[in-house]
């Protein structure tokens, strides 16, 4: 087994945040599509379509594929890849799908159960293991020092999404929908 350095709290936090930003991208694009509607009814219709094509499927994608499958096959997710991190078992090999699934779902819930104390444990643990690592016999190691790149990718993606969200809010507040909403609430029957 190659002796990699264990990854500490901050780089792991950065990798997780990057994962979150990556997974938010489709939602952000959908928000742009939804708020571009010409009427309140069309907005609702688009919302239902968004739930069908992304929000519910994304729950399956995240819990079954994005975390577990990628980690069992490659040892990383996109966020971890850009951060130069890898999830391995004690022997330095990739986790099995079952272990990876358990780690990414039940393990995370376990670590988050007491206000995220299980994640914060990474900072204090001598081997830099969180509760989810200990529960599944896994560890996160640094394969390459890439944190400046991680930070750059994060800033770019975060800014881009921030811009898209501001556009989405602008579309709602300046477009025809806000007028419809105002009319709806100011109607005498309300």
């Amino acid at each position, binding site marked *: 087994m190659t002796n990699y350095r264990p990854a500490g709290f901050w780089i792991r936090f950065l990798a997780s945040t990057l994962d979150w930003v990556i997974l938010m991208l489709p939602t952000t694009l959908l928000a742009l599509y939804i708020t571009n509607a010409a009427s309140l*009814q069309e907005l*609702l219709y688009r919302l239902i379509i968004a739930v069908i094509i992304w929000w519910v499927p994304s729950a399956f994608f995240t819990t079954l594929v994005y975390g577990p499958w990628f980690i069992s096959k490659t040892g990383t997710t996109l966020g971890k890849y850009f951060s130069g991190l890898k999830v391995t078992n004690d022997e330095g090999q990739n986790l099995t799908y079952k272990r990876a699934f358990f780690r990414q779902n039940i393990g995370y819930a376990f670590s988050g*159960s*007491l206000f995220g104390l299980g994640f914060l444990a990474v900072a204090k643990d001598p081997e830099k293991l969180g509760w989810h690592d200990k529960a599944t016999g896994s560890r996160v190691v640094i394969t390459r020092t890439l944190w400046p790149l991680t930070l750059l990718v994060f800033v770019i993606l975060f800014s881009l999404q921030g811009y898209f969200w501001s556009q989405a809010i602008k579309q709602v507040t300046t477009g025809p929908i806000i007028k419809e909403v105002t009319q709806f609430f100011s109607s005498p029957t309300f």
Partner: protein
Amino acid sequence: MPPKPDWTISELYNKSWKIVKNNPVLWIFGLAVAAGVGLNFSNVDRIFDSDTKNSLPATPSFQNFTNGQSDALGISATAPWTNFLSQIPTWIWVTLGIELVAFVIFALAISIVSSAWANGSLISGIDAALEGKKPTIRESSEKSFKSIKSLAWLTVVPGLVLTLVASLVLGTLAAFTAFVPSAVKVILIIVIILLGLVTYYFAIYITLSRIWALRMVVLDGKGGKEALFAGYRVAKKKTWSMIGLGLVNTIASIMVALVPIAILGLLFFGGFAFAKSVTVLSTILITLAITFGILAVIVLMLLGGIITSFKASTWTIAYKRIRNKYAS
């Protein structure tokens, strides 16, 4: 001279307290078990569960909600929306329905596995502590992984089978009562009541058997079905002792959990009681109550973990006392 009892509650409590006090790792597993409580079919060795279920307000149906809106807005105001909803193609509703049902089933499956794992880890950790070792998340979890299928089976199958069979039989008989003459109806109602009692008997014994079965799976490596039947044999012989311990456990845990709630209640009561006469005191008391309320959430969560691990510990010690006596 009467035979020596297999356990006394004070003895179990003393030993459990020592174990739980010295091993905070058990609190974490207890917390995980307590958090996954909602999906369990047996609640005897848990607190909060039945209380919260009974006290939940009835959720208004969508029908009632839209009716209410029509009342407020007038029929003409909601009509375009009703038209709009009816214009959405059926395939969209069907797809949405299928996706949501799949999601709920998936979430249920994850919760069952999670609950099984947490239970197994907790029992395994308690066993390690009883053997004089320091329980760790890694070792306890590994041991739980090995028996996770049987643990999940025990969590779901017995309760589910009983629910399905009872619903089917009782539902069919209840439906029959509408088509039979009065004399037969009376007999059918008596049969339904008797079968209801039988179902209740089995529900109690499944709950009691599960307590031992979980321990047999984790500590003795038995399969789920084998453990359930062995657990049933033990439960039959120790019914009253188990009910006694279960009751004391429940009362003790409710009393412990009530302390922060009572303090909170007193502070709020005092705050509002002095609201008109002594404004400064009232403000101080309400501020204290809000601060304490936030703290109470953390305390109650932690307490939930400690109490769950304590109760699991009493059952595990009891099981270790009788494992070779009745189980085989």
